[in-house]
């Protein structure tokens, strides 16, 4: 698999607090990478650095911000504008070669063609998130960074969103997403990155994480993650 993005020794501090420390990984075309970990682990900071909205104190990202589509945790949309107007605006700002075609493509991909004229304020949380992701994809970026894309969505909305994202990955887009929902990582990600205290503790498949966490194949990844983190804490305490 050809490498589409690499993150090398990235570090970020907020005053005395270390948000990220020496985090490195790479992802290939069409790969879906889940970033999981407890609250304050540094997931959003890592996604923001990949997206180019935050500058790292050290380290680097191989892709420029313009090559990475970014969907923040809270949909970044203008609620008084319609779906169509939001997509058109960002297509223009992204200087997409054919804005009309890009907007039409995104409306088709999100399945929101029949609601294109509706103000975003009237859309459900799930549909807003779809528009949010669609905006990230307008310029057809090779890499997509999604910060907790399914937060605040109900199960059916989540299902539809993941169908959409899986379709993008199937077409070759590399997707890096953060989530609190570990089962989501288990179902949709090819790889999981476990962050805790700003450090990358694990980089491997969900199956490997199950094994490291003492769970059988097909077991509960959430249990495995908790045990994995407890074991790491115990080892650190022993040292």
């Amino acid at each position, binding site marked *: 698999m050809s490498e589409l993005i690499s993150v090398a020794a990235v570090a970020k501090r907020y005053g005395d607090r270390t948000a990220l420390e020496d985090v490195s990984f790479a992802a290939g075309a069409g790969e879906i990478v889940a970033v999981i970990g407890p609250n304050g682990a540094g997931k959003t900071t890592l996604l923001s650095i990949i997206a180019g909205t*935050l500058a790292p104190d050290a380290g680097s990202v191989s892709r420029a911000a313009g090559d990475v589509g970014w969907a923040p945790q809270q*949909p970044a*949309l203008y609620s008084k504008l319609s779906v169509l107007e939001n997509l058109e*605006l960002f297509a223009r*700002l992204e200087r997409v070669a054919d804005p009309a075609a890009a907007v039409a493509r995104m409306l088709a991909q999100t399945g929101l063609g029949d609601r294109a004229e509706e103000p975003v304020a009237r859309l459900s949380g799930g549909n807003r998130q779809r528009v949010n992701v669609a905006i990230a994809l307008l310029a057809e970026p090779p890499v997509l960074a999604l910060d907790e894309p399914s937060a605040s969505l109900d199960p059916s909305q989540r299902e539809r969103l993941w169908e959409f994202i899986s379709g993008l990955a199937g077409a070759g887009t590399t997707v890096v997403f953060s989530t609190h929902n570990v089962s989501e990582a288990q179902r949709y990600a090819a790889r999981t990155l476990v962050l805790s205290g700003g450090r990358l503790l694990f980089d491997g498949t969900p199956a490997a994480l199950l094994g490291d966490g003492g769970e059988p194949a097909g077991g509960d990844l959430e249990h495995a993650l908790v045990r994995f983190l407890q074991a790491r804490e115990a080892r650190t305490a022993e040292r």
Partner: protein
Amino acid sequence: MRWLLRKDLLILRRSRLLVALLVLYPIAIALLIGFAISRSPARPRVAIVDETPPGETVKVGGERVKVSAYAEQLFNQVNSVPVATRAEAIAKVKSGDVLAAVVIPPDLTARLSSATEQGSLEVLYNGNALEQSLVSSTLNSALAQANLAFSEQIQQAAAKAIDALLQGGNVGILGAPEGLLGLREIPGRLQRIIAAEPPGHVRSELQRINEFAGFAAQNLALSKEVLSTISQPITVQSKLLHGRRTPLNTFAVVVAVSVSLMFVCVLLAAGGLALEREEHALARLLRGLVSRETLLAEKGLLAAGCAFLLAFAMLAGIGAFVALDFSRVGQWLLALAFGALAFAALGVAIGALAREVRAASLLAFLLSLPLALLALVPSGSVSGGFYAAISAVSFVFPFKACLQALDAAVNGASPAIGVPLLHLAGLTIVFGVLARVGLRHAE
């Protein structure tokens, strides 16, 4: 910038309530301030009890001045409510129907006629400390004016009596004979008698009486002038040192337009930028889609443009009712443009600090209104140190400079328009830089 501007105009078009508030609220505030400045204070509603017997007069020499004339003077100074009794007056003050009551006592005539005692009035008032202060100062002023007018009447009566003594004739003083000799005529007549009198004791005595009569006539004539000087010892002649005198109503127009320009501009610029944060779009925009400088310029220009159009329409509209010099319209436009840009820069600086529209609007409002009021405090109305502090605060915000620029543009007032325009340009740069610093951390 074009697409951002188009987006913001679309949002504004769909926010009708906000636009209506942005237009109507500043105009309402501006009109209130304008009225407060241009209109003289309303006459207080005061109950007046005149207990003096009807037709009572004060005797000055041969002249009689009606005491009711004093009450009439007082009636002219206040919004008078004549009442019959003191008890009725007290009831009206207590109920708040009148701010105060003035009781003219029955012995006023006797006291004024005695020439040894002052007349006195009784003033009854009620209310909180502020009302008491207002009533006290307003009534003192009204009573002073009534006293002045009454004393002028007495002075005129005294002057008339002096004239009668000097010129003689039918003096009109009760008991005085008809065709009375005037004091001025005595020296001439006496001189003729003295000339016919042989030298001796009688002649020398008559000579002494003649000298006294001449001296008395001269000094009595002088005393009439002294009386008029005493009644109004100092008169005022005013001269404006710089610029043109700005009529109060056109200055009120300038204040009203400046206030509207400020509110629309600051609220729109601050709210527009804060909206980007509130919609979580700021970080998305700033990751390479637009630069921070472009974003600030777009918000500032949109706010300045809208406020400029509103303020100009307001100025031109008011011009239909108040005499404004339309040949100076080029200067109006300059003053409005520079003022709008400075207010817009202040607005984006506020918007860069606030995280949501409501906080930005509140901050913009809390900052703008007191600054506008401070800039209107006239020198001399507060202590020197306090005025220096007010001036320093007013200097670092655009309202006073905008007011000066617009006053110079509309009324040709001093200082000339160049100075405040330069000041506004400087403030635009300073607040623009502050906004850029505030926007350094987008999220």
